[in-house]
């Protein structure tokens, strides 16, 4: 097989771009294993002279990283479960169940997508403050209950469920709840995985709301803790990079494992919407 120079050049070009895109992440990983102060040199070293785990140990032993990791993990998991519990039945009902005002309500929800959620941030904070939910997990979870986008995503997918399938189950005497659990949920499982992934990553990566609502350090999520840590430890490049690795690695691994669900859902939500 003959490789034309233009094809070779193109492939080489793509590989170089990929290297540039990946470089920051690889550099972050490499620096996190360097000894204290090693990265603050010119020219910047690309690989550690001696590989060390001291910064990871320091983060977990002295900086409370285990606590932040736990907070992030629990909040993202609960946000995912709650968001699914609220949006999947609603998305299905908007697609497949007949009730008066259905289309009007749905139109209204789609219209409300225009409103950025940040507008309501201040009153929501005051509301939660008045019921004592500031600085609690519950307060941090509240915005994930009201996902119009999630309803929209599930509805679009549920539209493809054949009505005959539901009717057949009804004729067999199944209740609406049984139909939902036994017929609808299995059919919806791809979009449920997608939505779960969106919410988990969204909650894990979220910054503004946890920054506002989680006031006590012991409740910080990883991004909030990392932002606070970076103000205290500007000079400790290696320590900060270890913290960044701990924050980024779980979501990156999760995305790589489930990327097909992520990308399919993303395209369904944007282009074909």
């Amino acid at each position, binding site marked *: 097989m003959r490789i034309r120079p233009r094809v070779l050049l193109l492939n080489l070009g793509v590989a170089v771009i990929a290297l540039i895109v990946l470089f920051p992440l690889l550099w972050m990983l490499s620096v996190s294993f360097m000894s204290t102060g090693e990265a603050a040199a010119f020219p910047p070293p690309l690989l550690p002279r001696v590989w060390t785990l001291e910064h990871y140990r320091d983060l977990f032993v002295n900086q409370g990283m285990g606590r932040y990791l736990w907070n992030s993990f629990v909040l993202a998991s609960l946000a995912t479960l709650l968001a699914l519990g609220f949006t999947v039945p609603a998305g299905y009902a908007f697609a497949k169940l007949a*009730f008066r005002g259905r289309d009007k309500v749905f139109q209204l929800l789609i219209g409300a997508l225009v409103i950025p959620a940040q*507008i309501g941030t201040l009153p929501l904070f005051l*509301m939660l403050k008045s019921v004592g939910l500031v600085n609690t997990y519950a307060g941090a979870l509240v915005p994930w209950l009201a996902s119009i986008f999630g*309803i929209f995503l599930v509805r679009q997918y549920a539209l493809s469920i054949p009505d005959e399938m539901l009717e057949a189950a009804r004729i067999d005497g199944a209740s609406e709840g049984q139909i939902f659990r036994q017929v609808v949920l299995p059919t919806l499982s791809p979009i449920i995985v997608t939505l779960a992934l969106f919410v988990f990553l969204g909650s894990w990566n979220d910054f503004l709301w946890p920054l506002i609502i989680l006031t006590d350090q012991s409740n910080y999520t990883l991004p909030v803790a990392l932002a606070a840590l970076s103000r205290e430890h500007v000079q400790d490049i290696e320590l900060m990079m270890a913290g960044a690795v701990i924050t980024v690695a779980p979501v990156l691994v999760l995305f790589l494992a489930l990327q097909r669900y992520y990308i399919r859902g993303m395209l369904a939500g944007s282009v074909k919407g």
Partner: protein
Amino acid sequence: MSGLSRRERQAWGFVAPALIAIAVFFAIPVVSALLLSLTDFDIYALADLKNLRFVGLQNYERLLTNPLFWGAMRNTVWFSVLGVPLAIAASLAAAVILNARTVKWRPIWRVIFFAPYVTTLVATAVLWNYLLQTRYGVINWILTSVGLPAVDWLGDPATSIPAILMFVVWKIFGYNMLIFLAVLQTVPDDLYEAARIDGAGPWKSFRHVTLPAIAPTLLLVSIISIAGFFQLFAEPYVMTQGGPAQSTVTVLYFLYEEGFKWWNLGSASAVAFILFLCIFAVTMVQLWVSRRLGGDHT
């Protein structure tokens, strides 16, 4: 009749939890924000609601005569004006390259290019702070090794916005790249083949085949991106804290400081509403455009 209403009641059972959550945690706060913006809600009102007064449009008047607010507006516009074309150009270039049939391992490159998008914003912002560092940063190392002067990226008001934009483009270009790729894959190969037979080079076939095919998507993606760039917050918060010399204070950053640093919640709500109006205007343009294009894209 009763059968129908039973089924309807059950259907409402499916949607009610979500609708109640949306009403309580989204609709009520948004409407309250409008009311709050007409009051002088501040730290004294936070302590005791008796100190709360209705002030009409005073918050808006004060904002529109506040140079710091206008600075934030100006910075946000700069972020969008520079950032949207840069990000779209990067996305489009990556999509066109990855769409070439002769590129091997395309699924792998696609995932690599998209990976920065799913990373945690705060973590990668901290990372880029070091890449952009004046003395030891990798970017200045590259510049100086090709004979260019080192730049004080985040310390100079003239370069702070471009510096943050480098990071933002790196992080988000994969998203629109995937959207462009999906559209490009609908362009039949015959068209490229015909262009090639007519003697068109890569640039000509891009101009006459690719560009017309993705023009509607390009336009819509641009408008949607503007709305995204209007909501920059964590980037300046982590990388520059709004500095140097207020040069990276965005509208959302201004809102955060006004609301949660100075506890001027009334005034901050007014900022929120002005931000909303700007995004709303952009969205209206988007809807108008998509309707003119035939309504098959939303």
